[in-house]
């Protein structure tokens, strides 16, 4: 895992420096999708707890 982190640091640095920047609308869109995943996982937990 430590080795994987060491390998990922330059990739993360590259994406942060050279990757495209999202608009606030794009990030809001992603937030809604992630919120939907959170709600779904919460539903699964409720189902499993019976």
């Amino acid at each position, binding site marked *: 895992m430590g080795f994987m982190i060491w390998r990922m640091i330059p990739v993360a640095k590259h994406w942060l420096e050279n990757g*495209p920047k999202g608009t606030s609308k794009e990030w809001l869109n992603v937030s809604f999708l992630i919120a939907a995943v959170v709600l779904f996982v919460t539903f699964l937990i409720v189902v*499993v707890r019976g």
Partner: protein
Amino acid sequence: MQNTNTITRSAESILSTNRVLRNTYALLAATLLFSAVMAAVSMAIAPPRGMAMIATFGGIGVLMFLLPRFENSGTGIGIVFLGTGLLGFGIGPMLSAYAALPNGPSIIATAMGGTGVIFLALSGYVLTTKKSFDFMGGMLMVGLIVVFGAAIINIFAQIPALSIVVSAAIVLLMSGFILFDTGRIINGGETNYIRATTSMFINIFNLFTSLLHLLGIMSDD
């Protein structure tokens, strides 16, 4: 003339993207099935935990170090099956441990179904809207480094709450990676279907194991 060239190039680009997408999903389905068969074999023969751990690290090693050398040739397909098969074999004992719980088979089935729904819904969203999620790349990589760091700390600290937080964070990060990777295939950012399949397989594999862990802890069993 220039317009004709543009139209031709654009049509070629769309055809190429569709080919990558079709090949990726076909290979992904095959590797998921093979990995599930290997997990079932591992559950049936019940190997020692050490052997399962060696299989898991072997799978990671094959996909991280061996695959990049062969990803542009037909041999790459065999190597993807080798890596994903080893990963499937590696989770056998973990699945056996969950299956032994009173509510175990139901937890495994829920985690499997939940993983399928999340993957299909997020991939379907990107395929329908054709949006690019490249802007998430930096955040996802940093998130992964932070989560891996927390997981390493928890190997020594053994804090149950941190274990839940790490699993929940991996579920969210892998959901983000499904959006990111599908967007890259759709928009021509990823043209190698062997590499695309490996990324998607790892996303689904991590999503399933983390969701299983989360549901296992939350089920009170």
